[in-house]
């Protein structure tokens, strides 16, 4: 210790309440739940903006504020490419607002994508020099960029469809001139969509995806279709307006086009990559270098597993435009108008929020989901007929009649318009259109049609009934209901990734619906009554990933956030407009007034089209909240690191990794100029570090009174990151070596946490705790509870619950002060994670566990820590968040899963929210849903971005209601159901026992299959019958039973088990599924067949193999993707070419036992393997560690334990499990 004295001063404060008394005096932030809005007058300038503000200046200010906040942080995820694109977007944007209509532009565009792009640029920029001036200040620029990005991100995605751009010219023109540009955009979208996903729908799509060139024809077709269809009405309408926005679009498109060549990727993943490149091309002058998180967000499932998602991506363009519009709208409103928005946004304390502020990508893109629909239309032909067919529903009659009449009379466009009617809001259009008519020339044609129809749809109910169309009963039995005899079907597992089922809604609603990545329901057809649900024996619940990194997200700045006055639901695409002035809430059915401001559509700059506002066009939107949504001024980003420096910790050497990662990422920590950071270390005493500006070196303050912890100094412990950066760096460089000779083996974690709480409570923020052993001193000390002899017991597993309520209480205190505690447990021995995890579980933190961590002896863990830290430190973060989930009247939520504190029946208190957090909610049906054919769920996440903005992210999901059991089975989302069951099983094992939980899981399969069996009379007793939608259910449940969390009979350390349970509770579905059922690929024979193109790389797509040793051959090499780990298993007869070309060793024997990287060899197979691995890695936030497993190495048990279809000593094989289930059913 003394040696270090030289570099860091230490003071020993032994006196109780030394100078530190002041700490107590710190003002405490109200715990937050009060209703006192008044106290918290809007802190930041921008929030205060009154509705009535006029003139350009206010506008500018707003813009700069929002965007600077959002976008400045680019650092978080640096994707250079993305940035570039954004910039381009910005330019456009800046040009846009004032914008004289760039009607002329469209024609210019036509000629060539790239060339046009340049032209466009110039044109756009020229018109708006004045604006540029506004933005001359740096802040402004950022704002611009953000805006641009918002608008254009979508474009990026679409860049993929280069070909389509080329195509545009011919297609576009059919529609009114102004509209043309937009249509093009859509086409590009369509292309994407197709690529992403739905193989079935578009025969050619897959091919197209893989081969960019192929795309050409498709897009054009789609285009035409779309135009004709008039894209669900709104798109065309909105776009048709000659205003600037179109011009922007054109620009974007052009850019995209040029870029497009680069972007090959069709699918979800594609979307990301393409965006990047496309953006780059744009490179306008933008000053902003920030990378948008969005780029990273690309993580979406690489394969574009979710058609909807992809669709959503596709939509982006429109959203973008919308957003632009929105933003403009704001200005406009402010400037001109007078339409002061009444406070639609009156909020209560409850805010829900969400934010993506990170600004990264999400903020950048305003793009909205609306485009999606388009894509669907294109895919499916979009006509009414399609709707019906798709809905295929029994009661179809209702929907059919209405739509049909409408279309008939008018031209194709009109027809398109008609579609929307089904929803209800479309009906508004007519009225609006009339009003708007002068403004929107393009729209007019549709206008008359709309009117005619309008009268037909007086009531919401009718609408809903007509929409409902879910009937599965219709003659052709849906694929999902095809009975499958599980005992005879050998390969239940498809060779391609399993997608989320698409709710059986009509086209328009499908297009608008929320992406399944963010929002999934276990039953995509909601049963009408609880009795029906009970009959189906399936769990009903939602799985949420609300703060997911998004590549594009419409961000809405509006004085008035329109919400239902009784249930506070945010306006969403599934509300119905009764007439121009009123809308009916889709959750509580109250009729609300449309506020004046909402009548104005900033996109089209027209009045009287509330149904075209971005809020109503996108099911995922983000609002910038006003001061109504604040209980106090938005807090700065505050990070506190609490580090264990006992002998054990120093021995493990994690400090080196941590300090190194922190030094590297210090500039990338999300935050603004107010960001604060602090450090504490502890062994048997607690050490604080004063880093106040002006000190020559960090000062260490030691508090040894752990029974009554106090802060040694009132300030200087949490310091501004930028003002004290040098001191922080000095400290981080010194920390790893400061305690090298320590002999202190005790750990006073509890008191250190209490101190951390005191330090954080005035502001709130994030506490990162690093712990390496069982806390042994002071409050919260724990005893070892694990009996190693019981690890493989098949009977009772005890101690899954916490041993003390200390950590829970602390977490609740922290949660009340908006502080989240994240736990990094790096220990080689039992550390009672069950108790320690409580500190994170209830404060909305996250938990990382590195068993037997040692920085030199266990390099793979060290590498994992390093990668996790990088992601952890740089990912987006939202502070002082709350999430509220609402659902249609009649449904109710009763149990929540995830890391948070349930503050009131439907309000989750999240001190921090991060993009890797998932949640689950169980639902019950309290009242019969007989009078509605649709139900909606809305989550609203209100949070403070790291830039100090209050934001609300809203997701809305719409699902049909069905009355027959068969329909319920047809709509099962088996992955969501399994994840929800896993969550429930974790609860059960803690509150009851592990064996109860296991029984419950088996019973879930038995009950649901026997319930199904009893509905299918003709197949009885011939085997184990399941509907196709549930055919994977037994497999997944078996995998769950063999998962670390629930397995018995295999030696499992208690901490490992508890950690697996924590992950089940807090991981989003995509990651959880990989954990439950890993993906297995054979990689020694990768070919380009079916490969996808991402960022100029060819990514082979080997088929998925079932998890059974029968698929392994000695001659092969196999990759298992377990989510957080990759295993490569090499058989001992493995092809020597593979070993040479990919692994870089001459023969099997020379391959080392521990290998965690593939060498970069210049061979085709090496390139393919690496690009496949990289592609898998890019699809997830945490970079998995690679383990090479040789056939004879001891590590192979690690690999083989994941082969869930095989028999183990203690567990069934898949077939045995089926037989067991069958026996249970017959009983």
């Amino acid at each position, binding site marked *: 210790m003394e040696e270090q004295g030289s570099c860091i001063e230490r003071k020993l404060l032994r006196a109780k309440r030394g100078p530190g008394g002041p700490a107590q005096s710190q003002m405490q932030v109200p715990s937050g739940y009060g209703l006192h809005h008044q106290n918290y007058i809007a802190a930041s300038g921008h929030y205060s903006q009154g509705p009535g503000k006029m003139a350009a200046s206010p506008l500018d200010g707003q813009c700069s504020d929002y965007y600077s906040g959002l976008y400045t942080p680019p650092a978080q995820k640096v994707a250079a490419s993305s940035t570039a694109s954004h910039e381009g977007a910005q330019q456009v944007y800046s040009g846009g607002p004032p914008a004289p209509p760039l009607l002329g532009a469209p024609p210019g565009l036509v000629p060539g994508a790239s060339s046009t792009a340049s032209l466009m640029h110039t044109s756009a920029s020229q018109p708006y020099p004045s604006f540029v001036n506004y933005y001359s200040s740096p802040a402004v620029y950022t704002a611009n960029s953000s805006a641009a990005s918002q608008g254009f991100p979508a474009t990026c995605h679409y860049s993929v469809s280069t070909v389509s751009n080329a195509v545009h010219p011919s297609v576009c023109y059919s529609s009114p001139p102004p509209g043309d540009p937009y249509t093009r955009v859509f086409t590009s979208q369509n292309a994407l969509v197709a690529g992403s996903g739905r193989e079935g729908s578009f025969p050619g799509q897959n091919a197209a995806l893989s081969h960019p060139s192929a795309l050409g024809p498709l897009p054009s077709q789609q285009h035409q279709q779309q135009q004709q269809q008039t894209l669900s009405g709104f798109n065309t309408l909105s776009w048709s307006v000659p205003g600037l926005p179109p011009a922007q679009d054109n620009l974007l498109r052009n850019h995209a086009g040029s870029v497009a060549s680069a972007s090959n990727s069709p699918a979800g993943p594609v979307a990301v990559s393409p965006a990047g490149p496309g953006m780059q091309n744009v490179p306008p002058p933008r000053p902003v270098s920030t990378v948008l998180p969005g780029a990273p967000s690309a993580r979406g499932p690489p394969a574009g597993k979710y058609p909807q998602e992809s669709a959503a991506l596709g939509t982006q363009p429109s959203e973008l435009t919308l957003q632009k519009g929105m933003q403009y709208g704001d200005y406009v409103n402010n400037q001109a108008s007078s339409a002061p928005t009444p406070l639609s946004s009156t909020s209560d304390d409850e805010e829900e929020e969400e934010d993506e502020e990170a600004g990264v990508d999400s903020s950048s893109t305003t793009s909205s989901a609306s485009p999606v629909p388009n894509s669907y239309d294109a895919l499916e032909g979009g006509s009414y007929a399609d709707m019906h067919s798709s809905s295929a529903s029994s009661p179809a009659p209702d929907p059919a009649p209405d739509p049909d009449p409408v279309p008939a009379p008018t031209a194709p466009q009109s027809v398109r318009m008609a579609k929307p009617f089904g929803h209800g809001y479309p009906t508004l259009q007519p009225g609006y259109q009339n009003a708007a008519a002068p403004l929107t020339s393009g729209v007019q044609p549709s206008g008359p049609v709309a009117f005619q129809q309008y009268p037909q749809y007086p009531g919401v109910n009718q609408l809903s009934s007509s929409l409902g169309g879910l009937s599965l009963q219709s003659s052709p039995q849906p694929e999902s209901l095809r009975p499958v005899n599980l005992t005879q079907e050998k390969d239940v597992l498809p060779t391609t990734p399993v997608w989320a089922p698409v709710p059986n809604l009509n086209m328009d609603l499908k297009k608008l619906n929320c992406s399944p990545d963010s929002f999934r329901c276990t039953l995509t057809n909601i049963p009408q009554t609880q009795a029906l649900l009970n009959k189906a024996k399936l769990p009903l619940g939602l799985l949420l990933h609300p703060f997911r990194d998004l590549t594009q997200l419409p961000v809405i700045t509006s004085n008035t956030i329109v919400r239902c006055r009784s249930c506070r639901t945010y306006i969403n695409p599934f509300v119905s407009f009764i007439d121009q002035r009123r809308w009916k809430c889709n959750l509580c059915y109250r009729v609300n007034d449309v506020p004046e401001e909402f009548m104005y559509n900033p996109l089209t700059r027209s009045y009287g089209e509330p149904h075209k506002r971005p809020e109503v066009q996108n099911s995922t939107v983000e609002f910038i909240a006003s001061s109504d949504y604040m209980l106090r001024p938005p807090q700065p980003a505050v990070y506190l690191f609490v580090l264990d420096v006992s002998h054990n910790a120093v021995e493990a050497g994690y400090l080196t990794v941590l300090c190194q990662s922190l030094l590297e990422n210090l500039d990338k920590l999300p935050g603004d100029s107010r960001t604060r950071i602090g450090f504490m270390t502890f062994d048997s005493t607690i050490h604080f570090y004063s880093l106040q500006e002006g000190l020559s070196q960090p000062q260490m303050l030691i508090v040894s009174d752990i029974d009554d912890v106090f802060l040694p100094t009132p300030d200087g412990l949490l310091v501004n990151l930028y003002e004290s950066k040098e001191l922080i760096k000095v400290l981080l460089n010194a920390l790893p070596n400061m305690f090298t000779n320590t002999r202190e083996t005790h750990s006073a974690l509890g008191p250190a946490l209490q101190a951390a709480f005191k330090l954080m409570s005035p502001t709130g923020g994030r506490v990162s705790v690093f712990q390496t052993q069982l806390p042994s001193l002071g409050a919260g000390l724990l005893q070892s509870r694990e009996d190693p002899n019981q690890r493989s017991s098949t009977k009772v597993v005890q101690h899954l619950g*916490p041993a003390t309520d200390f950590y*829970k209480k602390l977490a609740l205190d922290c949660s009340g002060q908006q502080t989240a505690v994240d736990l990094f447990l790096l220990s080689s021995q039992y550390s009672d994670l069950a*108790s320690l995890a*409580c500190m994170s579980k209830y404060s909305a933190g996250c938990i990382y566990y590195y068993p037997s961590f040692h920085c030199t002896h266990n390099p793979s863990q060290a590498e994992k820590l390093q990668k996790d830290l990088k992601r952890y430190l740089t990912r987006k973060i939202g502070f002082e968040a709350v999430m509220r989930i609402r659902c249609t009247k009649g449904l109710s939520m*009763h*149990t929540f899963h995830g890391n948070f*504190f349930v503050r*009131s*029946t439907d309000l989750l208190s999240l001190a921090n929210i991060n993009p890797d957090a998932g949640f689950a909610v169980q639902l019950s049906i309290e009242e019969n849903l007989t009078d509605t054919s649709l139900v909606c769920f809305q989550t609203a996440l209100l949070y403070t971005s790291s830039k100090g903005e209050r934001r609300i992210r809203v997701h809305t999901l719409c699902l049909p209601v069905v009355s027959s059991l068969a329909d319920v089975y047809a709509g099962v989302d088996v992955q969501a159901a399994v994840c929800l069951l896993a969550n429930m099983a974790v*609860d059960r094992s803690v509150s009851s026992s592990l064996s109860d939980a296991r029984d419950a899981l088996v019973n879930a399969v038995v009950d649901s299959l026997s319930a199904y069996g009893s509905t299918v009379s003709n197949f009885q007793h011939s085997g184990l019958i399941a509907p196709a939608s549930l055919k994977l259910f037994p497999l997944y449940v078996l995998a769950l039973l063999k998962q670390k969390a629930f397995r018995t009979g295999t030696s499992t350390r208690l901490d490992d088990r508890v950690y697996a349970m924590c992950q089940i509770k807090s991981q989003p579905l995509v990651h959880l599924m990989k954990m439950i059922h890993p993906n297995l690929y054979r990689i020694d024979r990768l070919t380009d067949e079916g490969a996808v193109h991402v960022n100029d790389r060819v990514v082979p797509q080997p088929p998925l193999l079932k998890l059974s040793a029968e698929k392994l051959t000695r001659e092969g090499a196999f990759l298992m993707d377990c989510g957080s780990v990759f295993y490569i298993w090499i058989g001992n007869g493995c092809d020597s070419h593979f070993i040479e070309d990919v692994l870089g060793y001459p023969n099997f024997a020379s391959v080392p036992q521990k290998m965690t990287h593939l060498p970069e060899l210049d061979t085709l197979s090496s390139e393919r393997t690496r690009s496949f691995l990289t592609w898998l890695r890019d699809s997830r936030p945490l970079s998995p560690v690679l383990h090479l497993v040789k056939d004879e190495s001891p590590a192979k048990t690690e690999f083989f334990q994941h082969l869930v279809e095989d028999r183990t000593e203690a567990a069934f094989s898949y077939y045995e499990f089926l037989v067991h289930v069958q026996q249970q059913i017959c009983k």
Partner: protein
Amino acid sequence: MEAVVFIFSLLDCCALIFLSVYFIITLSDLECDYINARSCCSKLNKWVIPEMIGHSVVSVLMLVSLHWFIFLLNLPVATWNIYRFIMVPSGNMGVFDPTEIHNRGQLKSHMKEAMIKLGFHLLCFFMYLYSMILALIND
């Protein structure tokens, strides 16, 4: 002597009735979002032990004074109170745990329980009142 026993029981029963009403009011406040789970549970947990003791004392008193019927009537409820208190998992903050009260319909079952207890105590109240009057007359 018997009168004293019943007077005491009557007073104790009154207290328990008030306590039940307090539980119901607090729980319904929580249901309506007037208070948050944390403060609700800390309020209620404070009174779990007094309730348990109050009820046990009456039961024991009845046993001692050889009122078998009343004792047997009280026994199940007193046992339930004690059982519930003992079975609280080590990591929970008491019978009412703010992190779980909104889960799995716990709030509803707590509410139901408080209602049943209220009914039971009212019944007991009149029984004690009757017995007390009878005892006073007999004296």
